[in-house]
């Protein structure tokens, strides 16, 4: 019984670490390569994207997931929201942003991603 309890606690610790404490550091740099963000299976891939500060940016989205939630991507900090048509590449233009981290997500926040502006 003791062992099961310990396993349970270890699992809890793992959940806390995996979802909250873990800080992903790698991000794809949009200035080096042209990026297409694939929207499928509940994730944006890639979901951490580096963009240049103070410059207009264009991101390309390609949605494969048919669920209605995935159909819209929102960049709340810059008031941009775009419909992503199914299986058609869609470019989303973003205004220049000061450096910092900006989230983007679907209306239900099932899909989440981060723009690292620097």
């Amino acid at each position, binding site marked *: *019984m003791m062992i*099961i*309890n310990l396993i*349970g606690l270890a*699992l*809890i610790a793992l*959940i*806390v670490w*995996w*979802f*909250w404490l*873990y800080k*992903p550091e790698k991000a794809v740099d949009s200035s080096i390569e*042209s990026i*297409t963000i694939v929207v*499928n*299976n*509940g*994730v944006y*891939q890639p*979901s951490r994207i580096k963009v240049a500060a103070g410059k207009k940016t*264009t991101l390309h989205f*390609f949605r494969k997931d*048919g*669920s*209605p*939630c995935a*159909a*819209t991507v*929102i960049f*709340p900090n810059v*008031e*941009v*929201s775009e*419909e992503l*048509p*199914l*299986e*058609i*590449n*869609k*470019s989303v*233009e973003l*205004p220049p942003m000061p450096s910092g981290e900006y989230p983007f997500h679907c*209306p*239900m*926040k*099932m899909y*989440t991603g981060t723009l690292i502006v620097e």
Partner: protein
Amino acid sequence: MNKLTGKLDNPLANKSTQELIIEGAGCASCVGKIELALKSIPDVDNAEMNFALRTVLVTGQVSVDLLIKAIETIGYNAKSANEASDDELLDEKEIADQKYYIRLMRQMWVALGLGVPLMIYSLAGGPMTVDTTLERGVWLFIGLLCAAIMYFAGKHFYVGAWKSFTNHTANMDTLIALGTGTAWIYSMVVVFFPMALPEMARHVYFEATAMIIGLINLGLALEVKARGRTSDAIKRLIGLQAKTARVVRDKKEIDIAIEQVLLNDIVRVRPGEKIPVDGMVTQGHTSIDESMLTGEPMPVEKFEEDEVVAGTLNKSGSILFKATRVGKDTALAQIINMVKRAQNSKPPIGRLADIISAYFVPVIMITAIVSALVWLNFGPDPALAFAVVSATTVLIIACPCALGLATPMSVMVGVGKAAEAGVLIRNGEALQTASKITAMILDKTGTITEGAPKVTDIVIADNNYTEEYILTVASSIESGSEHPLAQAIVDSTIEKGIDPENVTDFHAIAGHGVEAVFNDHKLLFGNQKLMLKYGVALNGFVAQAQQLAKEAKTPMYLAIDKKLAAIIAVSDPIKSDSIEAIKRLQANGIRVVMLTGDNRATANAVAKKVGITEVFAEVLPEDKANKVAELQAQGEIVGMTGDGINDAPALALANVGFAIGTGTDVAIESADITLMRGSLHGLADAIAVSKATLRNIKQNLFGAFIYNVAGVPFAAGVLYPFFGLLLNPVIAGAAMAFSSLTVVSNANRLRFFKPQDH
């Protein structure tokens, strides 16, 4: 209306990057061919093809048609990815939604095909336990069948859960996958190693797995259906666009697709037809029904040089007009864009749900583990079975998808509803704040009043002159002045067929009026101060002038050769429905305050007429914002309504700024909400819609929370020690599907809301 475009300016108008979708590119070697063909066009800077997506990105200032032609000459088909019309996108979206719906329904039937018979069997008292070898065999078969169903009907949950797990995020897929997975794995353990478990724990839960997958697919399918209905407003706006336009080219009138109308094309519109693009009338006269855009029921007369707006309906005459804005630049296209944007932006109340859902899933996973541990440690026999059931049920019932839907669904309906009433809401935040407004400041000129003064009275003081002569003199002297009241006098004389003549020695005397010489007569035209300055005797006419001022008119004295000739009264008429609209605001408990730069007497007279008791008169333009701050300091949530450039700072400072759509661009740009028709009813409508939307969001959040907050402890078994009750995971699956359904249908209920209560 045309002024709307000031703020809605399309930032992509001058883009030099174009994207094309290529059809018929079968192999990777096509890539080089296509790129080369595009790069050989002189103005193309670069062309890059993404073979996986079959798209090509072209930079350079080239027309799409040219690019498409170049691709067609080498044997492929191409279409622009960016220029697909809203109509097409909408159709595509509908087809995609329909496909998705059919898939979900099929998956539901597959899963319920196994789940329902199993559940009936279990409810009918059939043993769900594994004791004999035969039972092992049968359950093994069912277990494998269940695995197949998990693969065919629920694969998307498991793949999604895994993908987001590797991305360090958790979502509803995670919970569904964990819940159904736990139930299945436990059941398989029972099938393979029944002896390792106490007899009472040898229970299988295959029916739960199958039922939950089926029910959640059903929930998603119903959501897709309901969502389609929710975006009605956008569909209706898009439906306003005409499909074709009749343009004059080479002196012939031809019908072309609306996308092909070019700037400065001359377009013919016949009675009963829709205006295809924005433009300016060059020939003819007609009346146009703009109600679909502005909510204003009265048709508007249009003459030469008047603006016409795409999407409105030509009622009577045939006109020619010059296209001034086409494609995505038309006011209608930009309104559609703005409504779409606002529909997807969340009001602050929605962020609550966001914060919760960000922490929710991991918290629920922990709750499930804790609940399982508690059952294992303290639960009655069979503790393991209870632990598995409670953990599974907690995971399933806690699914936060309804929570995530609650706000966006209502905002989508609410913003669309407002747009139908001619009210453009910029974002979710404005929508929420508008519902809380306690004080509304109304600018007088152009907001409460028409903003276009008219001559109302002419009092002849010297019987040597006729009314006609007085008007000729007055308009002659005023035609040089830029004062709005002067314009009123000039306009009304021209209306009567009188032409102003030339004056000499024209001088404006600041704060007084003007003086000039007309046909050797010395003219003085201005206020009482001007008359006193030059010693003009006013006799009994001061009382008459005061009487006019009390009627909200501005009296002006005209003296010829230093003798009073007439009093001309000018007034800015109050909009026909201002009084009623202000009453509506006041009935909602809103403190209505009037703000104006006009003199106190006129301001008070207007205020009295419309039923406003609080007036800020003689306010300098730069002080308007201070008045907003003053009310805010009193603890009011202030709405400010204005139309002029000088209102901009006040509009920006107010909690919610309302711009009259017929006003200046600057005002619209500083505002949170734009009223497309001039009427103040838009204000009351906006507030009513925002209140209804907020109420709807709260109901939704409550509906979504109730399932989760009440369901989780219940699922964990809090009731068990008292009532011996433990929630069945199947019920949890059904509850979860229902929570989404509740939220979506409640949001749809908002569609029947009518902002106009008169």
